[in-house]
């Protein structure tokens, strides 16, 4: 098992005819992902890398039975794309657009959550269950090399860091059950603690690695769940961005969500709170495999 996606997942690509989608579809197919349909309104009947393109999600689902969607629709159209997908019955999504208008993001996430759909993003590079399926560009052309299969659940606020963490794991002879890049925008479809609860229930995951940043409360919610005993599997946490504490509050250096506003928002505070709740806190990538042993 794994979480969110596995070898039976049938993937739909929304915005399939765009450049980034074409780039990723090729690598996904090479990886073995079952991409069964694409959607671009007005381009129905075309194919991308052999994948049939439909005008609407409903038509694509009726013809192919897709059950997860990789959403490439750009920021200004992505709210409608998400709503269309969940209305048609999609329950797992990865949304790559970044800097989505906040009101649109809130509406799209509300639509997804109201029917129990699980959405990575906005501003994710995807989800991968190594050796089984990948949703999106995650892993690029060398997904097999970077993301080895294994028993560690990985959840990262940064797509790039999900790769670095999994690559570090694979070089240490370990691997991931599933790696979820949650998305770097301020509003994302799943809270980090919700992803960890999926790993908690997954018999093929033994421990989790999280990558956190300053700003927001994802990491604090994880600490609360650890303290409450809702997460029993070991959690290793790498929290970057301590340098921001040298500068005044309210300055964002990376993801738009990574802005320090309150006293528990800093990297240092999060490390302390997680450590006190029983997480093992790493200070570099190289330490992660040791802390998992």
């Amino acid at each position: 098992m794994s979480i969110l996606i596995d070898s039976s997942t049938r993937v739909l690509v929304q915005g399939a005819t765009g450049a980034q989608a074409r780039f990723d579809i090729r690598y996904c197919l090479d990886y073995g992902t079952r991409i069964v349909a694409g959607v671009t309104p007005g381009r129905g009947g075309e194919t991308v890398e052999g994948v049939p393109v439909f005008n609407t999600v409903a038509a694509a689902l009726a013809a192919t039975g897709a059950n997860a969607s990789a959403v490439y629709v750009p920021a200004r159209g992505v709210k409608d794309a998400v709503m269309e997908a969940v209305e048609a019955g999609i329950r797992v999504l990865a949304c790559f657009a970044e800097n989505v208008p906040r009101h649109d993001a809130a509406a799209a996430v509300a639509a997804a959550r109201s029917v129990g759909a699980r959405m990575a993003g906005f501003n994710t590079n995807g989800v991968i269950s190594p050796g089984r399926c990948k949703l999106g560009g995650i892993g690029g052309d060398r997904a097999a090399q970077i993301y080895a299969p294994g028993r560690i659940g990985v959840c990262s606020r940064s797509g790039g860091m999900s790769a670095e963490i999994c690559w570090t794991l694979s070089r240490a002879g370990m691997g991931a059950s599933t790696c979820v890049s949650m998305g770097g925008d301020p509003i994302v479809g799943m809270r980090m603690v919700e992803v960890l609860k999926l790993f908690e229930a997954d018999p093929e995951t033994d421990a989790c690695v999280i990558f956190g940043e300053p700003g927001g409360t994802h990491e604090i919610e994880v600490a609360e769940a650890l303290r409450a005993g809702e997460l029993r599997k070991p959690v290793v946490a790498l929290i970057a961005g301590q340098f921001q504490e040298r500068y005044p509050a309210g300055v964002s250096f990376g993801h738009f969500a990574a802005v320090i506003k309150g006293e528990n928002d800093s990297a240092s505070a999060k490390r302390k709170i997680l450590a006190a709740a029983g997480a093992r806190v790493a200070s570099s990538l190289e330490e992660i495999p040791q802390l998992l042993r």
Partner: protein
Amino acid sequence: MKLLEDHAKAWLRARALPVPDGRAAHTPEDAAELARALGGRVAVKALVAAGRRGKAGAVKIANDEIAAEAVARGILGAEIAGQRTRRLYVEAAVDIAAELYLSFGFGRLAPQIAVSRQGGVDIETVAASDPAAIVTAEVDAIRGLSVWQAAYLWERAGVESKLVPLLAALTARLYTAFRDADALMLEVNPLAVTRAGDLSIVGTMMEIDGNALFRHPEWQDLELDETGPGGRALNERERAVIAADRKFQGGAIRYTELPGDIALFVSGGGAGLLQHDLMLAAGGRPANHSDLSPASIDKPAALFDAIFANPGAKGLLIGMNYLQLLPCTLIVEALLLSIKRNGVDPRGFPIVVRLFGPKEDEARRLAATVPGIHYLPHGASLEEGVRKIVALVGA
């Protein structure tokens, strides 16, 4: 992006919300003229993007046009929250019987509303002294705020019954204005109850979403109000990066200059944060922080231009997380383009490249055409890239 009071109130007034009559003034004479037109008694406020202006002495009541002119003379040119006051906002003074508080913003997943019977003071002060006096709730982003949800909140906040329907109707309409403006924050403080029993939006702060400007041509040309660390003004290189980010489609670039000597071209949000931490731990001093997400060549090239134009930079680390969404060649092509147009010689300006992913071999061949670029072997860690540039620039 913070909207100044004249823009924020214009937006609300255009939606027939109860905003006192008022306009911007550039000179004390303008202020006197406006006071006369508005009937004499006016509030004169500094038009700067800052809260707590009242405390800072930037809001004054004048009883007539002569007083308005004098008060305006005092505020114009004054420094408020680090900003020089160049313009004023003059509006008809409101006869206030009671002051309430209302704001919209965002929580973890959804829009959020906060209301309080205690307006006219810092909401932070109320939160500290009497947290129960602030009632907050999530708003359904799809349905919006209903009048009855607003009524329920004001009732819980303890306002008198006869005010509830009035407040609820106004609050629901204000939420619509908040959403239609693509605002990230809208605060009305005070929300005044006048002696005549009407409601009036006296104090307003509004922050709009820079990512939604495509829906708002009316704000397209607003002056950049972004500031660097410590509220300092942006320098020309930082402004150039923002301009390039807006000009070219797709992806995003960000650049913040810092006092050190090692330039950072880092990406992916998280990997950049980690490398910045690692560099400080290794004794290096970053000359900037940056971020880049997949884009055409123009954006990374503009970021390199800023880095090479920074007189403080003595070397450069290109520390990318393992690329998954774009080819390595794009970064190297942008680098070579910028090296050429800025006349940089990497033999005297060390450049360390930690860049793996699609089209890596081709990127290596390209980089090798310029002597002095240190392209790390495949598999080198982020830590190794940091150690290498710190050693080269420190030496």
